[in-house]
């Protein structure tokens, strides 16, 4: 797990040293980066899962995930952009993998971590990668090995946690200005679910509420599909695309009984980001916008 500490600023400052300037500059750059908050919040969720929900603490898995993500990111960054702040992204990917992917095999852990990071450098067109790294890593690893799984029920339906994920997620969304994506996805997914389950099939309202009180769904909505780098750049294209992900997730879940359907829907529709970016020109997202 990565922790980025806040800079310690002395109250009285007398003749600051050059070293302090460097630290402060880097720390300031990190804190102004929305990814810093994502890392902070994901770490909180992971700790909550372990401490309160009693998830298995597989220290070796966490270490292997973080290690593989960092090494992969370092090597590829050194070979390409040399923007080492991208290690923040690697932290997010590794935390998300620790939160979502379940497996008991070391090779699978390493594969998922490697795929998540390498994807960003391989599937890159016009300075932009079009798969969400974690989503790509999880889905491809499950498809290839069959030795990993996602556990949509692992969060339970604890109101406090959901509120926490929701509100902290919202904070990140405001920071990266991707509220539109989350809203479009939720409106399409929840809307279709309620039409089918409540209005057509006649389940009581708490049937749907139960569905929505899922930590996995909220984590997906606030921390995955809203990833500003891998989603279409043009606002309207993005909204349409997110709505399509919601609709596909609904179809996969209701007619094909796919568990964790939003993840698979995102995986399938990610390549369309490329097409939408061609059709609707818009400047790419930068993590620290001046």
């Amino acid at each position: 797990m990565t922790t980025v500490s806040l800079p310690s600023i002395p109250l009285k400052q007398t003749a600051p040293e050059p070293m302090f300037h460097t630290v402060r500059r880097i720390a300031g750059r990190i804190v102004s980066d929305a990814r810093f908050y994502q890392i902070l919040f994901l770490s909180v969720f992971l700790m909550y899962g372990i401490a309160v929900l009693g998830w298995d603490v597989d220290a070796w898995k966490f270490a292997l995930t973080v290690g593989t993500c960092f090494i992969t990111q370092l090597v590829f960054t050194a070979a390409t952009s040399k923007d080492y702040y991208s290690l923040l992204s690697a932290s997010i990917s590794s935390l998300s993998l620790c939160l979502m992917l379940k497996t008991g095999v070391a090779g699978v852990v390493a594969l998922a971590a490697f795929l998540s990071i390498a994807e960003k450098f391989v599937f890159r067109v016009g300075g932009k990668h079009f798969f969400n790294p974690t989503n790509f890593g999880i889905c491809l690893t499950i498809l290839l090995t069959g030795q990993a799984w996602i556990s949509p029920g692992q969060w339970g339906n604890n109101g406090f946690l959901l509120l926490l994920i929701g509100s902290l997620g919202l904070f990140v969304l405001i920071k990266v200005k991707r509220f539109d994506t989350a809203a479009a996805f939720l409106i399409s997914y929840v809307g279709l679910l309620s039409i089918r389950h409540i209005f057509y099939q006649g389940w009581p309202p708490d049937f749907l509420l139960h569905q929505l009180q899922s930590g996995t769904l909220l984590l997906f909505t606030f921390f995955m599909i809203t990833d500003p780098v891998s989603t279409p750049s043009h606002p309207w294209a993005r909204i349409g695309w997110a709505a399509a992900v919601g609709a596909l997730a609904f179809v996969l879940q209701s007619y094909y009984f796919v568990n964790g359907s939003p993840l698979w829907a995102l995986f399938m529709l990610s390549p369309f980001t490329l097409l939408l970016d061609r059709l609707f020109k818009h400047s790419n997202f930068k993590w620290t916008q001046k």
Partner: protein
Amino acid sequence: MDSKIKTTMKKFLLLAALALGMQPAYSFCGFYVAKADAKLFNTTTQVIVTRSGQHSTITMSSDFKGDVKDFAMVVPVPKVLQRDDIRVVERVLFDKLDAYSGPRLVEYWDQNPCYTAQMEVKSMSTPRSAMSLSKGESVNADEETETVRIEAKYTVGEYDILILSAEESGGLERWLIRNGYKIPEGARQVLEPYIKSNMKFFVVKVNLEELDKSGMQLLRPLQVSFDSPKFMLPIRLGMANSHGTQDMIVYLLTPNGRVETVNYRTVKIPTDRNIPEFIQDDFGDFYVDVYKMAMKREGKNNIFLEYAWNISGNTGVKCDPCTGNPPILADLQEAGVNWLTNNGWNSYNGNAFFTRLHVSYDREHFPQDLVFQETPNRENFQGRYIITHPATGSLKCSEAKSYLRDLKQRRTLELQELAWLTGRDVSKYDNYLNKVQGYLQEDEIIPEQLPDKPTQIHQVTKPAMAAVTDTVSIGQPVVTTGINKDSGAIDQSQFIEEGSDPAVMEANAGNSYLYLAASILLSTVLVLYRNRKKA
């Protein structure tokens, strides 16, 4: 075998028998409908679900307490079942699976610090879960409209079975009432979503002639098989005639690994806990408290994992320790497992995994049916509680002093553990600690019951992934095998073969390394190529 150990074993057999006697009534996951004003009880249900690919077999055990002629029930099924898809099976199958997978009490003996001849004994009994009762209620019939079709009609064993399809819930409700079924209030709302999901209704009542012919007193479990992409259990219907909490144990048999619920959290029951010695007298009650406390702690909207074990043909240890014989091929086939092949006497080829889930559900906390997924997780799990008896024999030597001090400390911890596990007020068990003091004052324990077997000191180990641990091995005079012999059952050691499951895991792991190597190579080449192009 030593007389003391025999006595202990008998005591445990008796305990197990008592536990069976206390066994609560069972019911189905559908709702009961009465044909008269009989009191209906909906209590603990036991269900066996086997699933491979799209093929599911569901066996439902009923311990209907009323007059059998009043028995009737409705279960939603995904399609019209054929005659061959419906069977009755013997109740003993449930008893076997229950005994095999129930939470267990393990017994250890301290080594006498002054005396070397000492042995360790393990034993266990299987507790039963708590039960709850509630009544079915009736509703008045409206005017009739015919939107119900009888898709099929069979007599299977002592049951008359109808498969109905309906266009709307009101029609189905009226049809059931018109045909003499009393259905619970609110059934209509609960039936509606199933009708809209194109589910069919499996309506069962008892054929009294057939029941008389068979001479059976109890209704046998019913089994249905079908192909469906849905891997679920309809619990919602069962809540229509029960306002309280219902208890259900689900045994799942699948080829690959542990089953968990997708739409509820699957929580492990606390396990491998050291508890006070006196719990052996009421282990059943103890476990009920543990379960209730776990529910209180974790929330009422969870499902509890009580047992998970790799029972593949090539697995060496099918339970550790065993509270009942592991299911043999015939049992598994009876439960609907059709992917294993016979490999000589009582052994089989192929992979199988056993999962036992326990759920207490009510309308408030379980708004959705249970949806399952099979995971590739083959890690074994069991609810296991450990008691350790103090050393017997003379405690006069100098080492005894520190032993007794440690013993008191250990017992303090055991009581703390008990309080945490069950929520019981443990202050009333103070004499459990004082007994240790008693030893100190008496300064000698009569060594009359000292076992004369060789020393065995075992570490309490967590159940390992399909690996042979040191807690049970063949040929040792431990109770695990002894109980089975005494009860006339098959010796457990016959199931122990050389474990080769780790090899399967290795192969799968190798697969992932291959993919890892390939993807590293591929992505490196691509990135380098791209860099070069740019340059």
